[in-house]
């Protein structure tokens, strides 16, 4: 089986600081991968390099066998790679429903010929809002949403691009336990519908219940990659998280 996402010897430095050091990672289609690491270990930098927000100096990122070098962020989105932001970044002047129209107009329609008609766009919006449970808030503005609804909007907007791979960057930070369970259940639902998901998270309970595979980053290096239970028993991971 060929991997959906293949990262080879990816490196990124900011001046003299090495943020990512020769990361290798391969994600198969349909997988649920958890990515953890202490603060500043390079998780978000990795996401930004994968999604084209940052340029990596060295290494390659291949998506469906295709080298992504030189592809801008919106082109990667159109290829089927979506991300949600660590801090929700909704389009503040638009209603919740209109927020979803942007990816439908610009990501889905870019690969969809003929373009979706107005009723089709409306139907997709409704379907996505129902999926994340925001249907009754479709005409609200983001400023009226609670934290969890904002996270759901963030995920719905990423899902609206019609991704093959969803990278959820700390979708649950600051949420309560039941809210975390809500989002985990949502992500598993998305995965069951065929989307490969990489979850970046600090909340171990969420990561453990979600991930089929766990990858650990520490100071820009990948130190573990495997079944979550094995990874958590790994001595090096323990050292990184708990100290010696």
């Amino acid at each position, binding site marked *: 089986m060929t991997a959906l996402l293949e990262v080879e010897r990816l490196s990124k430095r900011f001046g003299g600081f090495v943020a990512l050091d020769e990361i290798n990672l391969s994600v198969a289609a349909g997988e649920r991968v958890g990515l953890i690491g202490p603060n500043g270990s390079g998780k978000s930098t990795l996401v930004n390099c994968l999604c084209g927000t940052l340029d990596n100096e060295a290494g390659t990122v291949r998506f469906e066998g295709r080298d992504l070098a030189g592809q801008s962020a*919106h082109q990667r989105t159109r290829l089927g790679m979506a991300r949600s932001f660590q801090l929700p970044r*909704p389009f503040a*002047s638009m209603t919740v429903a*209109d927020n979803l129209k*942007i*990816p439908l107009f610009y*990501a889905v329609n870019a690969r969809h010929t003929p373009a979706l008609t107005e009723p089709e766009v409306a139907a997709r919006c409704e379907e996505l809002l129902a999926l994340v449970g925001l249907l009754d808030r479709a005409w609200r503005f983001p400023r009226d949403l609670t934290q969890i609804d904002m996270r759901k909007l963030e995920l719905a907007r990423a899902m609206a691009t019609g991704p093959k791979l969803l990278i959820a960057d700390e979708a649950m930070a600051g949420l309560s336990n039941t809210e975390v369970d809500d989002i985990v259940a949502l992500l598993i639902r998305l995965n069951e519908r065929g989307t490969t998901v990489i979850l970046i998270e600090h909340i171990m309970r969420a990561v453990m219940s979600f991930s089929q595979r766990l990858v650990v980053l520490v100071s820009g290096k990948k130190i573990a990659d495997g079944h979550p239970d094995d990874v958590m028993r790994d001595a090096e991971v323990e050292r990184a998280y708990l100290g010696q």
Partner: protein
Amino acid sequence: MNSVVRSASFILACAIVAAGAFVGARAAGNDYVFFAGYTVLQFVVLATAWNILGGYTGYVNFGSAAFFALGAYATVFFHKFYPLPVPVLVVMGAAVSGLVGLGMGYLTLRLRGAFFAIATLALAVVLQTLVVNWNYVGGARGAYVIRPAEVEGLSLPYVQYLFLVMLALAVVAIATARIIEHSRLGYGFAAIRDDELAAEASGVPTLRLKLIATTLSGALMGMAGAPFPYYIGYLQPSSAFALEYAVNSIAMPMIGGTTSWIGPLVGALLLGTLQQITTVTISSAVNLLIVGVLLVGFVILAPNGLIGLWRRVSVKR
């Protein structure tokens, strides 16, 4: 199809209002109405053009005067070859300013916020310096463009003809703004204004859209400037690159409201008319003072302009 019908009926409505304005101005029986009306309409075009970039995508352009002046100087340039009809000059002015808008966008749109605004200001200074030192278009001396008394064949006083041209341009500008606002392009612009990074992550080709905005905005400003030499008769760099164009094109949409096509229209009509009245009754120097005071007042009291104020009031009711 539905949106095409809606746009067509909107343009028709605009044309009817414009025709009404022309008939009304004729009924006043005073050529001064046309002189004053021309200036107000010119600001409607400028404010609407500014808003396509500044209001829709959120990139503040301080260099409106440069695009306006480019349109005007394109007319001077081509006029020296051969006295072309004004509508042709308008198209040429639009092409020149649109191209410069595209170029400026390409060079500066990687800058954001204040840095972009400063770059546009610099563009105005550079272009003014170029024109001052360009002898062919009159340099610092300025250039005369002799306006015929009447349009041949139409037996229409020339100022009325220029008023008509500007009226048509206002319709073009407003229709363009409204069509964009209700199109996918408008959604893309708004996404860029709200959050550029999120827009890009949602598949919006931000650079391309911003280039479309700078080109369109520049072209419309150039259109507004193209008939200006005929209107004023004598064009010099300091009048074409005047501060009032840059200030008014920002102030009018801000006072009217930047998120909708109607904001710049209302702002330009109100402020433009007010300026014309004070020019006659008090002094022409008071103009910019009024703009300044109003702008400060609105930024503090109604940051979303009159349209925002009106929406807030109508929601409360």
